[in-house]
């Protein structure tokens, strides 16, 4: 986890808001570093984490988490972390001769056009509602949701899936949900599905972290900007949701962490 981001979000492994749905999106940048932050943060906080890793292998997350001080393999063995390796599961389903049943986790891949992500939700539900053990509230992290658009899943199906995850994890079990959606690359691109997905998720999230490349172009020392937008949670002060609380920070990714600073105060500049 990144200590600077913790202070910006006013959270710590001992004290963090519950029942929160965090949306991480990016545009002309790569926001996956935030996923690594949340993964190590919630593991340190002692929560039971269900991680849907759809774009990278387990060893990738493991290697990065090692640098951030968390051992994923150990967490997996102890049962604190349940990891779904999307890449491996996909292959077996896509190249399988016989049909798979509805309740298979990634069954949406074998049928076309895909109707819904019921199987995947079933997996998540089984994981978070299962035996709690000594762990804290359940947390669901998805990396990333938009890759399923590339696999032919419709934006509606993804919105339904995220609603169910939110209803189960956030409202029923008072846990947290973090979802990454990788956004448009260039201006004027007509990806309707992605636009709808982002809008729908933005309507229901409590905290939105939008990572963007710098408007002024490419820079070696500042890798981009993060806009944090609190949309007013259920019991927070501005529950009406109209007054969004927004802040923008710039960031630079280093080997073992990410440093955040206010606009214009990068060490390369000052």
């Amino acid at each position, binding site marked *: 986890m990144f200590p600077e981001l913790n202070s910006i979000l006013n959270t710590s492994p001992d004290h963090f808001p519950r029942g929160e749905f965090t949306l991480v999106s990016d545009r002309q940048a790569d926001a996956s570093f935030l996923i690594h932050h949340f993964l190590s943060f919630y593991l340190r906080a002692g929560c039971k984490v269900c991680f849907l890793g759809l774009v990278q292998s387990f060893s990738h997350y493991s290697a990065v988490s090692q640098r951030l001080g968390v051992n994923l393999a150990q967490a997996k063995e102890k049962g604190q972390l349940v990891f779904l390796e999307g890449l491996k599961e996909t292959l077996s389903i896509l190249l399988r001769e016989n049909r798979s049943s509805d309740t298979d986790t990634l069954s949406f891949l074998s049928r076309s056009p895909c109707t819904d992500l019921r199987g995947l939700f079933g997996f998540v539900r089984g994981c978070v509602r299962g035996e709690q053990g000594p762990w804290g509230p359940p947390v669901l992290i998805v990396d990333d949701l938009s890759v399923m658009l590339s696999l032919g899943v419709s934006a*509606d199906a993804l919105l*339904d899936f995220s609603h169910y995850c939110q*209803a189960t994890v956030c*409202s029923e079990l008072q846990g947290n949900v973090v979802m990454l959606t990788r956004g448009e690359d260039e201006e004027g691109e007509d990806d309707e599905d992605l636009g709808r997905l982002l809008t*729908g998720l933005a*309507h*229901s999230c409590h905290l939105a972290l939008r990572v963007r490349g710098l408007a002024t172009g490419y820079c070696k020392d500042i890798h981009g900007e993060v806009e944090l937008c609190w949309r007013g949670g*259920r019991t927070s002060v501005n529950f009406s*949701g*109209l007054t969004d609380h927004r802040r923008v920070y710039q960031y630079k990714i280093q080997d073992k962490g990410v440093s955040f600073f206010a606009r214009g105060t990068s060490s390369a500049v000052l």
Partner: protein
Amino acid sequence: MLLEIIDGTEGGGLVVIKDSVNCPGRCLLKSCVNAALRRKESVHVLGFDVSEEELRAGLDGEAAKSLVFHNGYTDPLCWTGMGTGQLTALHFSAQEIRARISQSRGPEPVTLAVDSLSWVLRHNPTASVCQSLQELRRDGLLKRILVLLHSDLHQHGMVDSVCHLASTVVTVAPFSGLGGVVGETAPQGIAMTTQRIKSGKVLQEEECFTVGQDLSVQVYGRPSQPGLTEPEPEDSQADPAANLTFNLRLSEHERQAKDNLALPFAFSQEKKSALLRPRAGGGQILYEPDAADDFDQEDPDDDLDV
């Protein structure tokens, strides 16, 4: 007009609140519901977007006890099978809604709030949703239907079709800080209200509003006025023709003299009317060619009386 909607005096029918990501409209919906509860009306809520807890947050404690919440949030598509008998987003029909409402309604006519219709639109064909809404409206059962719709989640056609049914449409947009008013006194949003009265007349009004913690709505007035907290006097508008050492204005007498002045080289009135008179035989071209160039250098357009 916004206050009328909240007070319930706008005349019933279908009220659609259109919002977007930048300016959520749920608080307006909640203030309407809250005001209705305070007036001791019977209110039913079809909840899809947010949980019951979150919806009830902020409502007037005592009055909120009579609120009936139909839970479509936990299991709208029957995936978990837990909510058998609960509201689902599938098969939205007037019959089903009526049945649910009659199960637990009070004696007064009922106000129905839908939060939000976007769920229903995503899983049902638009035509059937519109038909169901219209049928519900025709019923004597419901006094008013309040619907929250996320306009950026659907195609324009779908949103417009639903709004076409409505008697009142409130479009909520974020306030962009015009006129340099920021901070505590800045309104939270701009509401553009369009109301169709039975006589066919359409009323439109644009107002800035703020929703307080207790769900009370404060309306400010038109957003185009600079300085929203005080009324702006008309003459503070800078008058460029004032305070000059020369006179730029004309008195009535001077204006008349100016109009009467005959300009040099302009055709007189008689000649103009003579030229304008329609001639018999229309476009005759009478051309007498000269040996040399015929054009008059001084008057190429041939309209000066030289």
